[in-house]
């Protein structure tokens, strides 16, 4: 089954141009994609969502659609039905709001229209390739992400980036240290230990991802993750850690 591509742009000329670029890509690179619908009206896209209930589609949307709903509203509706949608915004430089759109609808990427045609084409091709990679990746590993949420925002962290989790100084919260981030959210270690078996409890107050440690000293019972981050493990855990590391 091919993954659907949906194009929505109010200017017919630009819509046709966009379609031509996408079709050329499909022709030469992959038969995994298929342009299911191209339209000037967001209403048609919504009808299509209701009728066909597409999964893992790739959506090219303009923000200003000369309609009562704009591209951002449309993207939110798409995200609601097609959770893993790959949304790409095609718009003029002035309207670009990359941070907001990443945050609101987890946009995959952005293409500015007002740039030379070759660059425009290159950016679309690049994003299509990225979309394909992402779709492949989710097929392989649905459950390996570490997920948590704060308010309305879902955070999804790659298992391979996780260093350690420990209780925060505030009640009911935990601190998560990763390769390139530092997060705080509501939770407790016991639940997390159950939910993510790859996390190992080195003492009463610390869950670690042993795969990411850089150095371990059994004499001082110290385990290091990078030059700055280290924790002590409990006396009784030495043997268990040794066994796990052998695996």
């Amino acid at each position: 089954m091919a993954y659907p591509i949906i194009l929505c742009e109010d200017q017919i000329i630009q819509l046709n141009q966009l379609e031509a670029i996408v079709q050329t890509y499909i022709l030469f690179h992959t038969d995994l994609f298929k342009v299911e619908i191209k339209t000037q009206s967001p209403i048609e896209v919504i009808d299509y969502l209701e009728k066909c209930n597409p999964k893992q589609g790739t959506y090219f949307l303009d923000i200003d659609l000369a309609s009562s709903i704009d591209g951002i509203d449309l993207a939110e509706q798409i995200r609601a039905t097609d959770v893993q949608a790959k949304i790409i915004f095609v718009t003029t430089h002035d309207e670009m709001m990359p941070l907001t759109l990443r945050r609101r609808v987890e946009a995959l990427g952005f293409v500015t229209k007002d740039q030379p045609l070759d660059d425009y084409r290159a950016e679309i091709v690049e994003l299509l390739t990225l979309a394909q990679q992402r779709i492949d990746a989710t097929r392989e590993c649905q459950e390996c992400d570490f997920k948590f949420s704060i308010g309305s925002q879902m955070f999804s962290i790659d298992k391979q980036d996780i260093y350690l989790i420990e209780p925060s100084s505030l009640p009911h919260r935990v601190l998560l240290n990763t390769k390139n981030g530092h997060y705080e959210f509501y939770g407790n270690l016991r639940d997390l230990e159950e939910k993510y078996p790859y996390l190992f409890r080195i003492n009463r107050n610390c869950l670690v991802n042993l795969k990411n440690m850089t150095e371990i000293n059994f004499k001082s019972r110290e385990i290091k993750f990078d030059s700055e981050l280290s924790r002590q493990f409990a006396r009784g855990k030495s043997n268990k850690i040794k066994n796990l590391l052998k695996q």
Partner: protein
Amino acid sequence: MLIDTKAYILRSLLDDLLFYVLFFSINRQGTVRKRVIFILFFLPITFLVELYSDISDVIPILSGYYILKVKKEKDYLLLNDLLFCTFIIFCVTTLSSTIMVQILPHNRIVGLTGIFIQLFVEIIVISVIIFFYKKNKFHTVAEKYGSATIACLLIYLLLVISLISYAAHYYNAYDHFVFGIMIFLIIQTVFVVFLFLKILTRQKAKYKAQIEKQELENLKKYTESLEKQQQQLSKFRHDYKNLLLSFKEIAKSDYSVVLTEQIEMLESYSDKYLDKGEFDYKALYNIHNDFIKSLLIAKLHQAKKLDVICHFECQKPLYDVMIPIFDCVRILGILLDNAIEAASECDNRSLNLMVYQDDSQIEFIIKNTYKKLNISIERLQKRGISTKKNHSGLGLDTIQEFNQKYPNIFIQYQQEDGFFSAQLILLK
């Protein structure tokens, strides 16, 4: 000292006349008719009342005020002038009397000659006063500071000295007392002048503050209208560019080389004029909280000065935050300062800001480029730890304190692709 009755009456009449001369030479209010009425009616009345009573000084003040002023309006300038003239006449008569007492032998009736000498002195003094009044443009000063307070001060001064002189007359001690009255007059005048100066400085300060407030208000209105224009312009820019893009595409698909060239010419021409200005953040329009807005404006300017390329997004209007505003401004200030400092140290200077809102939270994302460093985020949060020597630290420990203080704050840090981002989440 005794005065011949005829001479006394003549002196009183001339004193009253001097008042009108002085007043009309320093004040030009009212029509000619009114001024003639004022002098023709009230000069004789004042004179007659003066013969029988001591309150005659009030008559020219009140009558002058009500005749000459515009109806139903308060005119402190006019009142002040009238009071001032009365005061001067009083001073002058006291002065001349003092001189007369000193130079004339006692126990002799003062005749017409004596009175003429006294009047001569008075006229000279008054002429000098008028001369200086006009030369120093005292009138503009009076106009500028003519107020109820000054009128009150003058009334107070007049009341006190009339009371003293009345008492002196009552006990028939005027001649002995006239010197004392002189000194008292001087002391009182100094006191009133001192008060006047005090009030003046206070008034000036108040005035200045008022003007500044007004200026600020005007600036705010001006900014608002600029913001509106900015929005309209950016909408136009967007539509215009879209149209051009479509034209270009049509021209290309028709293989019309000339048309394509012409459209490209138009495009490059209009690009010059539709270029983004120095300070174009239309998203600021959506920030309706003055504190956050001025913080953002200040920081964006600061970043601009350091050649940091800024990008700012705020899609929904922001009115209020869920924590006390000053704490919010402080947290944002620390985060923005760090971001600008870090961005300005590296080659690719870039700062991205976003304000995001939905039903459950408000978020601020501050994303900046930074020079690679080997200190983990965890250590940066400790007090006094910094990326540089002799630096007080990043203030992340302060933020940590706020994090403890309010249960609805979450702060996340991330490093990715050469960008450091701090995310402040405030739950509703």
